[in-house]
């Protein structure tokens, strides 16, 4: 009788198959660690370059032609000014859109269209948003290279990310909560405003802060709308010209003098510090307030 399985052959191959398995497991592990190694190298490299250049003067000085005197003050404050526009605008528009899509919109073609539109908008390169901002805000509305023009452009850029984050947070609120609210005689908007939103707000905030930190680090659209890099004053209103940290770093990186590489590295450290701060706040909110239903 012929055996269905040739035992000897299986046993003979088994060792090889296990070796192969372990070899590839190691290879896959190596690939995973590769990203982490690069991250460590990148941070180590930038921090060592920044040492000696990052001091209190660097935070207090304006841009300068002399590397020793160059500072990030105008750019750091400028980034905060940008947030003054981007944070409220993108939050209101983003959360509003999310509420509409999740709570009000009927399942029809129009809703599908908005939804598809948002996911496609998220895939548009940031530099194209810059072209939009240049034409519509800088030239069309004659806002110039102001905080306002940059803020509007950036708000539209991060809008899709905030919408998607807010939608997920709202979707995670269980229906029982809504039904209980209706059962108590609340209207739809009362339910949304007093029950759904409070339950969803930690998730919305976490996603939004991450989206805003993207806006802080984004350079390309601001280059396109022509935000200057050499500014020795602080903006007084949202219609003044200004500069932001990534623009300033870009400018320093492009300078031929060796010293400006160190200045750029110091600027990057400040930028990364702001981003880490924002991300920590996001993680804190998620861990502290996020309810699991």
């Amino acid at each position: 009788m012929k055996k269905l399985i040739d035992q000897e052959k299986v046993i003979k191959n088994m060792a090889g198959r296990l070796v192969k398995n372990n070899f590839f497991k190691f290879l896959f592990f190596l690939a995973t660690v590769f990203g982490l190694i690069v991250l460590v190298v990148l941070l180590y490299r930038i921090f060592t370059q920044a040492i000696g250049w990052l001091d209190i003067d660097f935070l207090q000085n304006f841009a300068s032609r002399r590397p020793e005197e160059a500072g990030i003050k105008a750019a750091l404050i400028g980034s905060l000014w940008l947030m003054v526009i981007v944070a409220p605008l993108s939050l209101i528009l983003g959360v509003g859109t999310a509420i509409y899509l999740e709570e009000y919109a009927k399942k029809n073609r129009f809703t599908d269209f908005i939804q598809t539109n948002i996911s496609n908008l998220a895939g548009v390169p940031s530099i194209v948003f810059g072209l939009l901002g240049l034409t519509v805000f800088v030239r069309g509305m004659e806002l110039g290279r102001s905080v306002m023009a940059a803020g509007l452009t950036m708000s539209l850029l991060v809008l899709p990310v905030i919408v998607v984050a807010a939608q997920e947070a709202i979707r995670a609120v269980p229906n029982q909560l809504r039904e209980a609210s209706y059962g108590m005689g609340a209207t739809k908007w009362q339910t949304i405003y007093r029950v759904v939103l409070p339950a969803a707000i930690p998730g919305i905030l976490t996603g939004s802060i991450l989206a805003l930190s993207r806006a802080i680090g984004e350079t390309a659209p601001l280059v396109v709308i022509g935000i200057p890099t050499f500014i020795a004053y602080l903006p007084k209103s949202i219609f003044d010209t200004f500069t932001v940290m990534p623009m300033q770093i870009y400018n320093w990186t492009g300078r031929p003098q060796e010293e400006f590489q160190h200045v750029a590295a110091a600027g990057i450290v400040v930028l990364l510090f702001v981003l880490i701060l924002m991300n920590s706040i996001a993680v804190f909110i998620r861990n502290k307030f996020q309810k699991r239903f």
Partner: protein
Amino acid sequence: MAVIKQDSPTYSVREMIKEKKAKQSGLMFVEKLMPKLLLLTAVISVLTTLGILFTLLFETFTFFSRVSIIEFLTAKEWLPWNEENGSFGVAPLVTGTLLTTGIAMVVAIPIGLASAIYLSEYASDKTRRIIKPILEVLAGIPTIVYGFFALTFVTPLLKQIIPDLGIFNALSPGIVMGIMIIPMVASLSEDAMSSVPNAIREGALGLGSTKLEVALKVVLPASASGIIASFVLAISRAVGETMIVAVAGGSSPVLSFDVTQSIQTMTAYIVQVTTGDAGYGTTIYYSIYAVGMTLFVFTLAMNLLAQYISRRFREEY
């Protein structure tokens, strides 16, 4: 909530109803208004898309009224700065973009996929919970930082291996861009692989497969649509990436596939024009919209393709 005021003798049920109705009408007003307001915010995103489309189309038409579309698509030289015999052939910018994108994919696809397999098939829950957030940090670093890293670290490093390497080249930004995209490929592919039900894995393991065989012969084919969609999205991301190539890729639009020399991508060209002082209304000014349009069409096509792949070829369980 109507409170019954017992001390007022004239207070009747009729008045209670009236009071309630007065309150209701205010409430109903808000109730009717809010959906409309919210719809308005939702329409902003549609307006943004229309804004992008019209801006690009309108200014691109102006450009094509000065430079023929045939020259744009077929000429082999991109010399916008020449007053006399300038040439607007987009081909060098496209090859520059494809070159850096190609290098990025050579880095990002194998490493990203391998990380995804490790995280989804081999790693314990604990390892995954540690590694995934760190990979997300890698994705959250601003691109200008990667540009700086490419120019001041990777290029000098590569120059020790390839002595002919130019200060600006396609190789270094390509590699760094690939590293930046690894987390995206890894996380999207891992999502696709994790959605393959465990019963299928257990079936294969029960038949005597090793974990590697399960991963490569069972899980990969079952999640192929999601994985390929993640590759396409990664390509789209690399095509639109700006600052890394603008900082480290150079600004010489040449039609060549030499990765060691300076090139120029579509995005880097837009950056070069907008940081320089090409005046408003010049042909060069309008050329950035034509290039932007090309870029937009490229990335939109890629994104739609990714959606199509993941919808059309999805395996349902």
